[in-house]
């Protein structure tokens, strides 16, 4: 565009201009922060220097407002905006956190369409141009026809300064001959719209299909509370309302005053030069300010004297504000409108609530989202809270002149300085704050892969070795000084004297105790409630759970209900993807009692796990509870309690241990910390389960090694969790009553084959699980357990064979059918069982994320042995 006479007065020329702006902006986008800051500085300086000239031009051209006040607005737009953003990073990397691998990069948006109103034709132009330059955007100014000369002059002058300071030529453009057609075209063509104007303009902006930051009408209501400093309040209102003849959209439009101070407020207004309209004068002014429901353009930005004159009312020439004492807040009352002039409505209210109701209505009818104000003693916290709650405005100003307060940083310090005030969704805006540079940049967030912290959580004390039970219990008395112990166990153990070692020791230490021995296998909520009843009346400071998984699980549940009677099981049973982020927060445990777990079978590992399962006998629902809060405080693994386990139990619980270890080892949450525990546990099972099964108490070493294996595997899966093998076994137990350990065993090698593929349908989701590696993990485990072979595949096969052989030795059946599950019933329940298994908490940690159809196939294969 070499032609000096080129002007934007048509769609064709506008498209040439837009092209030029785009080119300039492309260049500008590569500027550094230093280059941008220099331009920002020079242009702010130039605008500041020209503040008087621009103010004068604005008043002359529009015939509205007050020259001296417009100087302040220009000054503000240059100085406050520069000051607020001079050190703000707007180019390139603006934020970086290397530890978390997060980087934020600011990019310009492109071309900003800036619609400039006639009320602030130069200051708004300065404001928007400065924001655009600071953010490396191009800007095209669409002036109001009434103010086009001064607005465009501002743009032209600042463009020259910007280019002198190094900005690309043509980075600022403007429409020379404004028309609605061109304004709409600009809004369509730009990348973002900064629209300041009436509802019509804002609507056009939003319907242009481009993101728009528009502002709407205000109808700022002010309440003067009876606790207010009246002199300060009245003079602040006058100061703000007369500023630029009331043309700032945040200006006060009405003031509501309680009965008790009404006369005093009125006196102060009158004393300071405001004119109270008399009855007949009120109607004359009404007809002058609003015509057919709309604001008369002729009064906008005029002085009180001039408006009175137009209405045929004679007032002193230096009158500051025309005040109409009116009653209705309905829109049919002319004084209830936004008046953009020194005309103010004044209402009397009997109560504070009435004043609030009036303000609410005024906001609803004319200024949703804009600004409201209150004058009050700031110690009136209750009233302030009521006001804050009631006002649907994005700025609520306290003891502040609204025009000066709303634009920010002048009568307050943390409200952003701005001449474009967002009104939120209430005002149909996308922004509810004062608009600033952050609204004119796109922020790219670069996020590097990070793995969240992992953990190893175990009971603070795990004691083991044959005969250690009384030794370990000694701590309860001699170190912890516990006074009252509550023992939870089952009838068999109780009747056969298994509790005696404990009670003798407690007697010796003088600890009082009671014993609840009604725990049944698959403990019920009803049973736990019984126990809690006894517990609540006994008030123990230590709970000792003695038994297999059932007694320990029941005791954990009683512990929760004893400490937190208010808890809801449905909430506590909430599943999780990451136990740290679960929706439900588990209550804090251990405030009433210390928890000791003493296992009598070598299988569940419940003495060291954060898990418990309880069945509601009324509904049949099983509630699996998982949280580290229910991890026992002390675990005592003394094989003396396990010597006489029946053969069946040894087999079922023994193979359960192997499943725990294998699943924890291939889990997506397995860590080096759990791997050692899992590997050792599985090796012990292979080495000692056959003899423990065959010889029972005849081989106390094997018994003890199995007790250790159970506890080690428990600690492994307490942290690495399990997998789909357990999910499926849980449902085989629930639907077909196969003992848990055997249910695990009957599908174990099938699930291993299913997991051991390098191309699974889907992989489990956890950042540390970086590629499918279940097969390699199984082989690693196999080698540790002494399996050999000429290659990986053979080792895997031999590992499977070793497990199958172990199963044979301890009498695990080959198929589900062999456990007496009727075929028709199995097939009828298969879909439901498969879905429930998929949805089991254990599934989440499986290395292969299963499809329901795959689970179904696995079940079928295991049923028929195919």
């Amino acid at each position, binding site marked *: 565009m070499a032609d000096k006479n080129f002007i934007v007065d048509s769609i064709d020329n506008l498209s040439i201009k837009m092209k030029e702006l785009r080119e300039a902006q492309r260049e500008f986008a590569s500027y550094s922060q230093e280059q941008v800051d220099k331009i920002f500085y020079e242009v702010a300086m130039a605008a500041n220097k020209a503040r008087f000239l621009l103010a004068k031009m604005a008043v002359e051209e529009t015939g509205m407002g007050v020259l001296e006040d417009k100087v302040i607005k220009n000054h503000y737009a240059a100085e406050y905006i520069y000051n607020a953003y001079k050190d703000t990073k707007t180019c390139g990397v603006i934020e970086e956190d290397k530890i978390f691998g997060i980087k934020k990069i600011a990019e310009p948006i492109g071309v900003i369409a800036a619609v400039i109103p006639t009320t602030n034709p130069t200051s708004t132009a300065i404001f928007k141009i400065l924001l655009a330059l600071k953010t490396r955007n191009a800007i095209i100014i669409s002036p109001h026809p009434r103010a086009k000369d001064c607005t465009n002059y501002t743009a032209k002058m600042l463009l020259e300064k910007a280019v002198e300071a190094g900005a690309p030529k043509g980075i600022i453009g403007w429409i020379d001959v404004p028309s609605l057609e061109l304004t709409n075209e600009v809004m369509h063509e730009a990348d973002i719209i900064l629209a300041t104007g009436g509802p019509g*303009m804002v609507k056009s902006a939003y319907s242009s299909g481009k993101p728009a930051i528009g502002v709407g009408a205000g109808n700022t209501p002010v309440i003067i509370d009876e606790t207010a400093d009246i002199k300060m309040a009245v003079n602040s209102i006058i100061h703000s309302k007369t500023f630029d003849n009331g043309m700032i959209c945040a200006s006060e439009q009405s003031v509501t005053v309680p009965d008790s101070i009404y006369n005093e407020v009125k006196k102060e207004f009158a004393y300071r030069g405001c004119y109270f309209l008399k009855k007949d004068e009120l109607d004359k002014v009404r007809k002058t300010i609003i015509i057919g*429901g*709309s604001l008369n353009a002729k009064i906008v930005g005029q002085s009180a004297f001039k408006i009175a004159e137009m209405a045929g009312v004679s007032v002193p020439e230096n009158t500051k504000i025309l005040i109409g004492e009116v009653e209705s807040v309905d829109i049919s009352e002319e004084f209830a409108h936004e008046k953009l002039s020194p005309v103010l409505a004044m209402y009397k209210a009997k109560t504070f609530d009435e004043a609030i109701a009036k303000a609410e209505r005024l906001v609803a009818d004319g200024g949703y989202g804009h600004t409201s104000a209150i004058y009050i003693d700031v110690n009136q916290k209750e009233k302030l809270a009521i006001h804050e709650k009631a006002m649907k405005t994005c700025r609520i100003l306290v003891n502040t002149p609204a025009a000066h307060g709303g634009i920010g940083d002048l009568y307050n310090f943390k409200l952003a300085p701005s001449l474009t005030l967002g009104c939120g969704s209430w005002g149909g805006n996308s922004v509810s704050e004062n608009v600033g540079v952050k609204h004119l940049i796109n922020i790219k967030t670069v996020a590097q892969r990070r793995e969240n912290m992992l953990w190893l959580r175990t009971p603070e004390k795990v004691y083991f070795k044959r005969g250690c039970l009384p030794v370990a219990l000694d701590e309860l008395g001699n170190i912890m000084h516990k006074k009252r112990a509550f023992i939870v166990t089952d009838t068999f153990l109780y009747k056969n004297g298994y509790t005696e070692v404990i009670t003798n020791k407690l007697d010796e230490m003088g600890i009082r105790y009671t014993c609840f021995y009604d725990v049944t296998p698959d403990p019920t909520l009803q049973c736990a409630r019984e126990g809690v009843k006894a517990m609540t009346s006994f008030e123990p400071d230590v709970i000792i759970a003695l038994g297999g998984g059932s007694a320990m699980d029941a005791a954990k549940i009683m512990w929760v209900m004893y400490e937190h009677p208010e808890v809801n099981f449905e909430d506590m049973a909430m599943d999780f993807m990451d136990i740290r982020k679960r929706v439900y927060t588990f209550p804090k445990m251990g405030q009433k009692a210390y928890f000791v777990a003493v296992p009598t079978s070598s299988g569940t590992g419940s003495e060291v796990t954060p898990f418990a399962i309880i069945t509601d006998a009324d509904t049949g629902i099983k509630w699996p509870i998982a949280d580290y809060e229910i991890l026992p405080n002390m675990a005592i693994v003394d094989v003396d309690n396990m010597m006489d386990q029946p053969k069946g139990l040894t087999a079922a619980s023994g193979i359960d241990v192997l499943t725990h270890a294998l699943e924890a080892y291939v889990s997506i949450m397995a860590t080096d910390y759990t791997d050692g525990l899992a590997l050792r546990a599985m090796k012990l099972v292979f080495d000692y389960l056959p003899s423990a099964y065959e010889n029972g108490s005849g081989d106390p070493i094997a018994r003890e090694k199995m007790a250790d294996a159970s506890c080690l595997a428990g600690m492994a899966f307490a942290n690495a969790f399990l997998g789909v093998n357990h999910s499926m076994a849980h449902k085989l137990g629930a639907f077909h009553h196969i003992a848990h350990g055997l249910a695990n065993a009957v599908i174990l090698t099938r699930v291993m084959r299913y997991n051991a593929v390098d191309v699974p349908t889907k992989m489990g989701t956890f950042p540390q699980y970086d590629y499918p590696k279940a097969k390699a993990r199984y082989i690693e485990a196999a080698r540790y357990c002494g399996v050999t072979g000429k290659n990986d595949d053979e080792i895997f096969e031999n590992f499977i064979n070793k497990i199958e052989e172990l199963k044979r030795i301890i009498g695990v059946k080959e198929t589900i059918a062999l456990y007496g599950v009727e075929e028709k019933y199995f097939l009828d329940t298969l879909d439901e069982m498969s879905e429930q298994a998929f949805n089991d908490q254990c599934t989440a940690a499986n290395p292969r994320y299963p499809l329901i159809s795959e689970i179904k196939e696995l079940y079928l294969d295991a049923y028929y042995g195919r």
Partner: protein
Amino acid sequence: MDLTNKKLILERKHKKVYESNDCIIKSFSKEHPKSDVFNEALNQARIEETGLNVPKVLAVEEMDGGWAIIMLKKNGKTLKEIMESDKENIRKYMDMFVDIQLDINSKSSPLLNRMNLKFGRQINELKELSATIRYELLTRLDGMKKHTKICHGDFNPSNVLIGDDGEISIIDWSHATQGNAAADAANTYLLFALEDKELADMYMDIYCKKSDTAKQYVQKWLSIVAAQRLSKHVETEKELLMQYIDVVDYL
């Protein structure tokens, strides 16, 4: 169609209206564009098809060097005459008048001219308004909701005929468009207000109540319809219309 005994009943600058036994003949001057005449006939035919009771178009033909629309005559007195002769019952007539307008608004005719386009064109052509005022008006028009309700465009009691048997018919559809009914109401209000402010206010109250419309919603259209009316260049109306026109949307 019996055009014998036609007698002149109205004469305007560009048209003469004759009445015959069973027809009305709207005959336009030579200068009046042919397309305008056909367009008016087309408009009326479209309204006919909506089921509203309007004079049936019978023919468009050449007459005295220009073009004429011939339509079936509707008999009766205008509502305006009735209102003037029976002032006591004026409220009742106004009720009826608003009901008729709401009935019109309830109809649609997808091919009818678009109100917003027509208004925009008319405002753009109003060179006696300053660019600033035209800009304000167009911005306001642009922000208005664009509906597709049939709007008569010149709905006033003189365009409603009441037959001896009570049959109601609506005439003069040359300004009909599809658009926002509140604009049509604002236009009717203005037509009343140009003659009688009190009657205008009565109309506004009844219209807003019956249509469940907020008054300010209708009022928002006043400046636009006033500008449109200004294009008729009636010197005596100019001052009042300018008052309605020179208003601002909140800035």
